[in-house]
């Protein structure tokens, strides 16, 4: 039965790319390692054999130049998918992305289109350190003309990538490396999920948690324990950071009166800052508690697993913050917190939490 098919995000992305290439001969793939034996963590495996070197292009180590090539080809009618194994490498391509990909449709008064997808992978763990673990979503979220997608789950990853390929705009597709392991039910056939906004991953009426990417799983775990303490959190998987659709978040806030954001990136000037600011501007009458933002502290990612221990927010932090916002008493929080703490401590901090593999 199709319903029983459970695959990982990495497999879902490979499948989406395959379907997109089969469906439209203008789609081609380009990146450092797309044609190598490891196939970008499996997300491009098998595509070279199926589509050949004309459409699966092993890219010279020239991030800015090749982004310009992708843009030129897209303006001419092709639909490139470019992949960077780390966001940190893609930084070299910001000139082309910001000046040309994002603006050509606008500057040409709507004449030119730049239909391209740039996949970038956010690293984490195993001591990768300051230049292999940056989650720089706000850089891209800042630029009008770019779209920014941050998937967390397999069904959504596939549908969002297929929609991104069909979109006539440059789409940054930011994949957290640890998200690649999460699994879920994914239909075999082609389908797309519009790049229009978030989805409610869990219903609740006491607190709204807007989580991005991998933080969705930490938020869902925290929500499970919060429920045991009598707090029902509504968890929103942001998915699309630009264009930012605030409507579902404001609707949820109107119901819960409490808003927390949990990002994979920095708190300062982070996605949460924008979401909270808009919520305060437009939904302040609903607020029953000061909004809270969780994310990374103001320093680069250290390598040592001891230094990174407090760096990434985890479900315990979410639990504590939510309890404070909801005015949960210490007596009701403590036993729940102890249980979650025991569960969370079973796994080292520098590898993906196995329970987050799903299926979701």
């Amino acid at each position, binding site marked *: 039965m199709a319903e029983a098919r459970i695959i990982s995000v990495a497999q879902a992305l490979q499948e989406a790319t395959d379907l997109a290439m089969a469906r439209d001969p203008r789609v081609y793939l380009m990146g450092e390692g797309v044609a190598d034996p490891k196939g970008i963590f499996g997300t491009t495996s098998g595509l070279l054999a199926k589509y050949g070197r004309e459409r699966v292009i092993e890219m010279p180590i020239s991030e800015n130049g090749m982004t310009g*090539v992708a*843009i030129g080809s897209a*303006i*001419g009618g092709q639909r490139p998918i470019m992949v960077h194994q780390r966001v940190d490498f893609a930084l070299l391509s910001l000139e082309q992305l910001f000046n040309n990909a994002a603006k*050509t*449709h606008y*500057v040409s008064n709507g004449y030119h289109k730049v239909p391209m997808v740039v996949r970038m992978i956010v690293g984490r763990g195993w001591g990768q350190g300051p230049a292999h673990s940056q989650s720089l979503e706000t850089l891209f979220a800042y630029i009008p003309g770019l779209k920014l997608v941050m998937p967390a789950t397999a069904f959504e990853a596939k549908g969002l990538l297929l929609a991104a390929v069909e979109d006539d705009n440059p789409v940054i597709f930011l994949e957290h490396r640890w998200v690649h392991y999460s699994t879920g039910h994914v239909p075999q056939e082609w389908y797309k999920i519009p790049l229009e906004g978030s989805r409610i991953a869990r219903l609740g009426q006491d607190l709204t948690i807007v989580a991005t990417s991998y933080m969705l799983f930490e938020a869902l775990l925290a929500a499970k324990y919060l429920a045991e303490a009598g707090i029902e959190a509504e968890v929103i998987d942001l998915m699309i950071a630009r264009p930012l659709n605030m409507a579902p978040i404001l609707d949820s806030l109107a119901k819960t009166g409490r808003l927390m954001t949990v990002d994979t990136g920095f708190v300062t000037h982070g996605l949460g800052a924008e979401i909270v600011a808009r919520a305060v501007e437009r939904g302040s009458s609903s607020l029953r508690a000061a909004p809270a933002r969780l994310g990374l502290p103001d320093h680069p990612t250290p390598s040592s697993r001891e230094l990174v221990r407090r760096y990434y927010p985890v479900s315990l932090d979410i639990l504590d913050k939510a309890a404070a916002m909801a005015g949960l008493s210490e007596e009701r929080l403590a036993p729940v917190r102890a249980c979650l703490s025991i569960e969370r401590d079973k796994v080292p901090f520098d590898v993906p939490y196995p329970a987050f593999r799903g299926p979701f």
Partner: protein
Amino acid sequence: MFRTMLRIRMVEEMIAARYSEQEMRCPVHLSTGQEAVPAGVCAALTRRDEIVSTHRCHAHYLAKGGDLKAMLAEIYGRATGCCGGRGGSMHLMDPSVGMALSLPVVSSAIPVAVGLALGYRQRSEDRVSATFLGDGSVEEGVFHESMNFAALKKLPVLFVLENNFYAVYTKLADWQPDRPFEELARAHAVPAARADGNDVSMVASATAEAVARARRGGGPTLLVFDTYRWREHCGPGYDNDIGYRSEDEFLAWRERDPVDLLRRRLTAKRVLRDGEEQTMTSSIRSEIEAALQAARAAPFPQAHTAADHVYG
């Protein structure tokens, strides 16, 4: 080609003359003195071939056949401009004649032209793309990145280096070692040719050879054309007095005026007959006058449309 060059000269000089009226409210980078390169290069291309230009794009736009009315309207910030007023003088485009777009950040245009060429290959189209760059552009990594990939895939793209010896107010010798640009191409296994960029015949023949190579699958070429910008880097004036170059140097280049060189050659060969240039000049003048009037009379884009076309 003579008419093309004369037309570029007259348009640029009209802009220089009227710029102080403060109605063209965007930076202008004039091509006066550099007319032979765009005229010669574009003469070797067909309408279906595409070019990607830079901040100094007026001459490229006109040489490729871009619509003068839309160009002036753009510089005047009008709704009828080639970018609807969203680009200004540095973003001229007319895709209907293969003037694909202009990108004003140094070297930014180069890989985009390579991408157009990759698209021709992927769609099996018999077309060539060309990109214009300056002497300073070879310092950017993206120049080398583009050459490397174009050579690897043998893409039908021309890298046209207009060497005017100055990056804004700095002499080439102050920021690059004394080495021929052609050697940079050879390091990437790209053939290169260098010619007098003020001699339009040499520009056209060098380009024609490169185009022929590209069309038969022989890949990219770097074309280096030495020329000279008469007016200031940005703006309508002359700036030989501010100290970065000498009046003597300017006058020596002016002696080698590309328009005049061709005029003398054509007159000697009796290709350009008595009175013919006058007729040409007066028809171009009327065209410019009409385009100017149309631009000035055209409506401005409405402020509420400023947020249109962010997404397509």
